[in-house]
């Protein structure tokens, strides 16, 4: 699969070309200083292909914050039910970063195991991912510590590597190849220099995070982690879960308004107080520290026990956004400490 080159000047054009037959999603910046958002083009704001994590992770294009699974309308005593229609067109995502792409593979393990989640599967199968080689965004980035290659993202159908005033575009899969073909009219052959720069790219993503080698059962250790201390500065705001690329819990709500209604699937999180509350009103995780422990141990211990990998891609969103400045890295550190004290 040969490498092609996309000039920055032709980016908009490229999006338009893809838009002819595909729904195109790309990082869009609404106003300066904003974190980009992955939005369906055309969208208000400029498409910015930069190594900046979108506010809401790529996951949301496959498991949206809230979506209708079916709708029901009551008419003269009759109730009419309509299932969610299939995607109208195939989709392509431009500029996804390695961390978010790697996260999809983690969620796949849950969503695609038998019986697979039809919505997730359809969107995964019908979405091509053109990711952007990432030099590492900020101090909280540590994807390199958890086996993610920020420059050659696993699971991407093609990769854009910044070089000169544009990007080197290399396909990695059939799907990616088809995208490159579709784009031929706006692409050109790269110069040797451009190939050189792209190949020479390096990433600042840390490799020394305590998250490295964290993927195992922590059962005998976790009791000794000072969860209370974490809880003491946790506001329970749940922003960590809202921004996490691997969180995938959802709830099903039947929402009736007047005579119409819909069955909604919406994100839910174990960071929320109501999450574990039962119909009886009992709540095994009424305490904040219990919820924090659940959330982090699910990623670092339970998920690892079940699937052999931790449910964290080191994107650092939780650490960067937490009002209490706590992140999953710190929890991993505390686990390691607890283990050290232990033996």
């Amino acid at each position, binding site marked *: 699969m040969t490498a092609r080159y996309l000039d920055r000047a032709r980016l908009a054009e490229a999006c338009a070309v893809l838009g002819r037959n595909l729904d195109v999603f790309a990082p869009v910046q609404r106003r300066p200083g904003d974190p980009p958002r992955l939005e369906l083009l055309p969208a208000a704001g400029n498409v910015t292909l930069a190594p900046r994590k979108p506010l809401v992770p790529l996951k949301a294009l496959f498991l949206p914050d809230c979506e209708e699974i079916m709708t029901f309308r009551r*008419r003269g005593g009759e109730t009419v039910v309509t299932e969610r229609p299939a995607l109208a067109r195939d989709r392509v995502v431009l500029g996804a970063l390695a961390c978010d792409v790697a996260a999809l593979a983690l969620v796949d393990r849950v969503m695609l195991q038998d019986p697979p989640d039809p919505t997730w599967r359809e969107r995964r199968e019908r979405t091509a991912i053109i990711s952007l080689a990432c030099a590492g965004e900020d101090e909280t980035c540590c994807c390199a510590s958890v086996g993610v290659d920020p420059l050659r993202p696993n699971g991407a159908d093609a990769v854009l590597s910044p070089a000169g005033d544009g990007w080197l575009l290399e396909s990695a899969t059939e799907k990616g190849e088809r995208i490159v073909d579709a784009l031929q009219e706006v692409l050109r052959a790269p110069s040797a220099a451009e190939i050189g720069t792209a190949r020479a790219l390096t990433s600042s993503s840390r490799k020394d995070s305590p998250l490295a080698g964290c993927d195992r059962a922590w059962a005998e250790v976790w009791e000794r982690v000072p969860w209370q201390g974490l809880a003491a500065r946790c506001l329970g705001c749940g922003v960590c879960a809202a921004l996490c690329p691997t969180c995938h819990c959802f709830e099903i709500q039947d929402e009736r308004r007047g*005579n119409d209604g819909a069955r909604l699937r919406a994100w839910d999180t174990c960071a929320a107080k109501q999450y574990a509350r039962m119909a009886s009103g009992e709540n095994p995780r009424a305490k904040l520290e219990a919820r924090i422990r659940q959330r982090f141990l699910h990623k670092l211990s339970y998920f690892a026990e079940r699937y052999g990998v931790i449910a964290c891609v080191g994107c650092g969103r939780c650490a960067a956004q937490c009002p209490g400045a706590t992140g999953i890295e710190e929890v991993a550190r505390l686990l390691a400490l607890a283990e050290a004290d232990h033996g």
Partner: protein
Amino acid sequence: MGKVRVGVFVCHCGSNIGGTVRVPEVVEYARGLPAVRYAEHNLYTCSDAGLTSIKKKIAEHGLNRVVVASCTPRTHEELFRRACEEAGLNRYLFEFVNLREHCSWIHMREPDAATAKAKDLVRMGVAKAALLEPLEAARAKVTPVSLVIGGGAAGLAAAGALAQQGFRVHLVERSDRLGGLAISLWRLLPGDRPAAEIVGVLEREVKATGNVQIHLRTVVEDVSGFVGAFKVRLASPDGPAEFEVGTIIVATGARELEPLGLYRWRELEGVMTQLELERALSSGRTRYGDAVFINCAGAREPGRTYCGRLCCAVAIKNARYLKESDPDARVTVLQRDVMAFGAEFEGEYRRAMEAGVRFVRYSPSLLPEIVGDASVKAVRVRHDLMGRDIEIPAQIVVLTTPLASHADSGELSRMLKVPLDADGFFLEAHMKLRPVEFATDGVFVAGAARFPADIREAVSQGIAAAAKAAAPMYAGEVIVEATTARTDPRACSGCGSCEAVCPFGAVTVAQDAKGRPVSSVNAVVCKGCGACAAACPCGAVQQQGFTEQQILEMVESLAFGREEAP
């Protein structure tokens, strides 16, 4: 309760509704609504036929919610609720939809629009009905004993009226004798009879009943509880007393304002208040020489803006008497303007002038001055009409001050949770419609405690308050509105917003077993206005019959319920 089964009864009201709204169409529409198991229309749903049909269908179709779409709940709700009750359904599982006053009568020329609106209204009613819950009205036993605070004319009249009806009464008077302000008076208008004589009649009547326990030199120390069961604690030299009463009448009266710092009162010999003059007159002294009365002393001025109402009449009465008993004496009344209401007082005013009392107007901007060193010599005043100062010789100056509220009325108002007005007088529930009642059930007011009243008013108000107080004591119990507020302790943060806005002191926040603050509502005291429910940020406090969910459901039913776009 099991599955919700709503029955809808739409009324033609002859042609009142049916003449505009296409009732059968509305019924057909109602049949299609969620949870509706049965719908019909009646020529007159309120007729025997209609009511019988409601009861019959409740049984036939196992209906557990009833919606009647007809006229206004203000006239017919009770009727339909009773019908539900007779069919074994809790009366609060009924919802009223107004298709007449609120639809057919106000859209008479628009049958289509009126019919569409009727569908909306019925749909909203059904939406709420589906969420109705059975309620029970709280009942509270009423102790047939009353506490009357104040042994003046109003208090005596109230105590007497209650006692004559066979109720036991505790009459509390803080001085050492009954009669209040009146006994220090000399003669009373209208009719000009000795005050003592009139008060004596009231006192004898009270004692004759044998039902009144009189507590002299006694004050109310604490009151708790609510209508039917107030716990009262009294304090007196012979020790404290505690007992329970069903109702309370406040008849604490008022006091003559002491004109401290005004017109050299208590500084010059011969300057006295009306009350001091009345005492002197009672003691038999009749001749005083030249006299000047100064009206509105300490009244209708910044800080005490009200008119004492009665003071003018008092001055008129006493001025005339001084003139008649000493025709050579010059008697002058300095006034800002004369308030002699009613035929009698106006008559007294005329008689006084005929007797030779002079009435001179002064202006509040130039107050009269007293001339004299050790004792009064004269009064200098700017004569309004002549526009120059005149000096009126005088041996005595009588200051006409208004009645004022007792300094300590605040304590009692806090104890009883009833309000005072800006001048410290007690404030009734509604100045026109509920003149002797407080918003707080079981507590009433009579006489000058409310506002300066002459003896005739004091007595009639006392009797009125007694009549109001007697009602719940005859009934033996109070049945309170069931649509009261209720707190869900698990959802409550104890922030106290509910407590802050309750006008009746029905909501209190207290620590629970875990030491957390939690609000709770006393259903007997609660009047079901719902102010607390609206103040509660998280919906922990709900007004039964008007819950957050019921109201929101109606809103959404209107917003989203339409079959066709509006």
